[in-house]
């Protein structure tokens, strides 16, 4: 049953079209539909959908502002983008049909849909984007010289700290991607295992738990990214002075 790698639906040349990619495309479609609906009815006096979106945007923008202060307007699109994308993936992956509807190929069951965040390719892709965006934003804000001063110094102690910081950039990619992947994949394994024990009512509490995990993991990924951005966008000396 539980396989770490996503299952390939169709092999197009060297490109494997996987069930996780199909889910990603469905989520893209949902988001774009939502955007079209939102922009069609964008009004001064909001309707229900606009009100919900406004509530989320307003609340999360204040959160961003409380953490990153004056850099909020630059960080917010990234934060909100990661949050929205991961949350919709996680929540839609809990719908019935995921991991259960599929076909047999060479005596092997291949589900048609699988949660995109249970594919390490997706989480690594997100983590790489987050890390590169963090570096770019940091260089844009504090300048290339100020940014490099964070990693390189003539002072041996700070040089050592700098090397650790460089290392942390790469461990961040790993920790961000594996945290998200691990949580969602584990959730899927738990749900399928429980469903195999008894398919009625028994999975319900676990399903509720998975809804919370879906929300929390989306928030964790987004907030950690926001935190890294906020730290790296603060000049090195100012940050040092605070300690």
């Amino acid at each position, binding site marked *: 049953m539980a396989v*770490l*790698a*996503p299952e390939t639906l169709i092999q197009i040349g*060297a*490109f*494997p079209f*996987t069930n996780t*990619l199909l889910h*990603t*495309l469905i989520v*893209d479609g949902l*988001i*774009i539909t*939502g*955007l079209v609906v*939102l*922009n069609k009815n*964008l009004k*001064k006096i909001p309707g229900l959908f*606009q009100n919900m*979106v*406004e509530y989320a*945007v*307003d609340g999360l*923008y204040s959160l961003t502002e409380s953490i990153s202060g004056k850099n909020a307007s630059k960080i*917010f*699109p*990234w934060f*909100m*983008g990661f949050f*929205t*994308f991961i949350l919709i993936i996680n929540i839609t992956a809990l719908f019935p049909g995921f991991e259960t509807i599929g076909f047999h190929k060479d005596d092997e069951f291949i589900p048609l849909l699988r949660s*995109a965040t249970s*594919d*390490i*390719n*997706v989480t*690594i*892709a*997100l983590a*790489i*984007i987050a890390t590169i965006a963090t570096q770019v934003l940091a260089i844009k804000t504090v300048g290339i010289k100020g940014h490099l001063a964070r990693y390189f110094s003539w002072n041996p102690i700070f040089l050592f700290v700098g090397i650790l910081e460089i290392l942390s950039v790469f461990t961040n990619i790993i920790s961000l991607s594996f945290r998200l992947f691990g949580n969602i994949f584990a959730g899927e394994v738990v749900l399928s295992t429980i469903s195999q024990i008894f398919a009625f009512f028994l999975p319900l509490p676990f399903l509720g738990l998975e809804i919370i995990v879906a929300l929390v993991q989306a928030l964790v990924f987004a907030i950690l990214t926001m935190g890294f951005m906020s730290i790296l966008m603060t000049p090195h000396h100012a940050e040092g002075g605070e300690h």
Partner: protein
Amino acid sequence: MQDLINNFGINGFLLAAQIVNFLIILYLLKRFAFGPILKLLQERKAKIAESLKNAEETEKLLAETEEKEKEILKKAQAQAQEFLTDAKKQASEIHEAAEASAKVTVEKMIADANKKISLSTDEAEKELEKKITTIAIGILEKSLKGMLDEKDQQKVVERAMKDLH
């Protein structure tokens, strides 16, 4: 390492596809969701602040107007009171004057009447006197006729007339 990559199904194409996919979605979200909504929220916030300010100003104006109204009313009342007092005073003055003039007129009339009465009484007295004198002289002349000569008669009448007057 190769085993790890194979086990997890890490694939360069998939990775690239997902990166491109997310960047597109992020751009769309920023362009069509967060951007306009943040702008809208800010506009609404500004509008609410403006409306509140306007409401405050209106309230202030209202309070001012009320105060002015009160003041004007007070003034009007005071003026009315003054007018009333004046009118009362004037009325009483007129009343007094009328009374005084009436008194004077009446007194004058009474005096006139008195005078007239006394005048007519005097006249009547005088006439009576004259008449009495005439009668008396007549009686005297009649009674003296034949008793005295004409010269004495004349003398007596003259004396009597002199005495009577």
